[in-house]
């Protein structure tokens, strides 16, 4: 077969060619500046958490990377193979779980098998025919995760995907996401205001301050991670201080 050679875009030209490169991005709504000269780089397979208070613009950045919003200045390079898990599951109520996972793809036998495999991965094996309205919040969010992973994304965008879950479900979901990201190795950007979550999941934490990344820290802990390993508290306090939060509850 004499197919002309197409340069494989997925193969990095240099070993460290980044998956995402954001340089000097600006964005404002009216006269409110959200992002100003924002820069961030994600290497292939890297898990980065973007921490910020609410209203700091972290979700705006994620939406720009997802192609849901335009930026006003600067450059954004992101792969077309990108998927999102939103804060809410955002499933189509009138489609069964299996069809939701392959929403937008042709329902071939191949894809349906892929959907089943993805559902099995998130612990919902055999639930293809269930209706979204019959799922619990955690289950629905796992379907959303399967929907994002079944496309083999090079970039996975997580927009506070655990925020709406109860505390126990959240812990399980965080473990599941860590495991699946380790397995599939997409570059991951997790947007969150939960410092613990960022430390538990990310390779690197970037703190959003005044529209740009103020501080960027590698997370120095071995995986699998646990709260309370030596140094966890200090690292946590450090990040909280960067976010402008002094943690001391109770009388001095």
């Amino acid at each position, binding site marked *: 077969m004499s197919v002309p050679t197409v340069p494989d875009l997925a193969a990095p030209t240099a070993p460290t060619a980044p998956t995402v490169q954001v340089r000097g991005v600006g964005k404002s709504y009216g006269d409110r500046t959200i992002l100003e000269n924002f820069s961030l780089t994600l290497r292939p397979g890297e898990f980065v958490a973007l921490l910020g208070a609410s209203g700091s613009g972290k979700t705006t950045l994620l939406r720009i990377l*997802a*192609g*849901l919003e335009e930026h006003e200045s600067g450059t954004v390079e992101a792969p077309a193979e990108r*998927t*999102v898990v*939103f804060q*809410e599951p*955002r*499933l*189509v*109520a*009138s*489609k069964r779980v299996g069809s939701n996972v392959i*929403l*937008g*793809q042709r329902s071939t036998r191949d894809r349906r098998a892929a959907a089943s495999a993805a559902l099995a991965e998130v612990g919902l094996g055999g639930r293809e025919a269930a*209706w*979204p*309205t*019959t*799922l*619990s*919040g955690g289950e629905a969010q796992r379907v959303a995760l399967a*929907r994002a992973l079944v*496309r083999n994304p090079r970039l996975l965008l997580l927009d506070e995907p655990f925020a709406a879950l109860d505390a126990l479900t959240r812990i399980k979901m965080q473990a599941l996401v860590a495991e699946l990201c380790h397995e599939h190795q997409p570059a991951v950007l997790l947007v969150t205001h939960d410092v613990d979550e960022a430390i538990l999941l990310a390779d690197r934490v970037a703190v959003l301050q005044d529209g740009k990344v103020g501080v960027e820290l590698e997370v120095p802990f071995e995986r699998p991670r646990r709260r309370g390993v030596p140094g966890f508290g200090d690292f946590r306090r450090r990040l909280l201080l960067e976010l402008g939060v002094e943690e001391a509850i109770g009388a001095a």
Partner: protein
Amino acid sequence: MTAGTTTSRALAEASPVGAAAAAGTVPTTVPGADGPRAGATASGRKKRSPRDVLLRASVPTAILALWFLGSAQGWIDEKQFPAPWQVGSAFVELVSTGVLWENLSVSLGRVAVGFAVGGLLGLTLGVVAGLFRLGDQLLDPTLQMLRTIPFLAIAPLLILWFGIDERPKIIIIAAAALFPLYLNTHSGVRNVDRKILEAGKVFGLRGLGLVRHVILPEAIPSVLVGLRVSLSVSLLALIVAEMSNAPRGIGFLMVSAQQYFQMDVLVVCVLIYAVWGLSVDLVVRGLERVLLPYKRLGRKS
């Protein structure tokens, strides 16, 4: 118009949405996120205890019993209101002579044609105005203005224009059916959750794909509410249309029964309209079961 009132009441009992229709105006009701479940009675959802069933059935049964007893004892003047067995035998006679079917089939035909024209138009316009900004700009203001005209008010005008043949009757029914379907389809398409639309876009759906896989499925609950109201209002339009100068139809049967003081035939006609209204409701509920299987399975959370 005793007949109309009775029928309206039957409709109103059959469905809360129909109640708005029976009030005589074109309803604009678009129940909230809950869609048709809000329209449907809560009865379909939970099982009732025998005591509950007994209590609910007690009053209608008592009324029926009183009717029987009152007629048998002569408390009810049969010139004013016929006895149950008189209504029964009138029904049997109307059926056996073929008079009933002859007129009922004409009425059914009128609603079928009128509803097909008006309903399809309402559905199409609703989708177009819901999907496209230009469609919305061109269609919505006009239709919103037109819907404020009670459709029954144009009946005399139509009769002057088209005479007393089938056309004005079908046009009234079509006009009645158009607006509820337009309004509910329009708002159903418009109000598809933006967040789910966004998810569709992120996962590669564009244009027609988005319409087919996200927008229309999400709008179906609203469309079904529109359908239910449309069908109920069509019946109302039929009754009015048939009572003026119709040579055949259930309405004609009623008018001539009225002229000849055939109380029993009148009551039969009222009951037929009532059963009709009830069947419409059952049909739409059946459609909901088929098209929205997930609605019955929802969690409360």
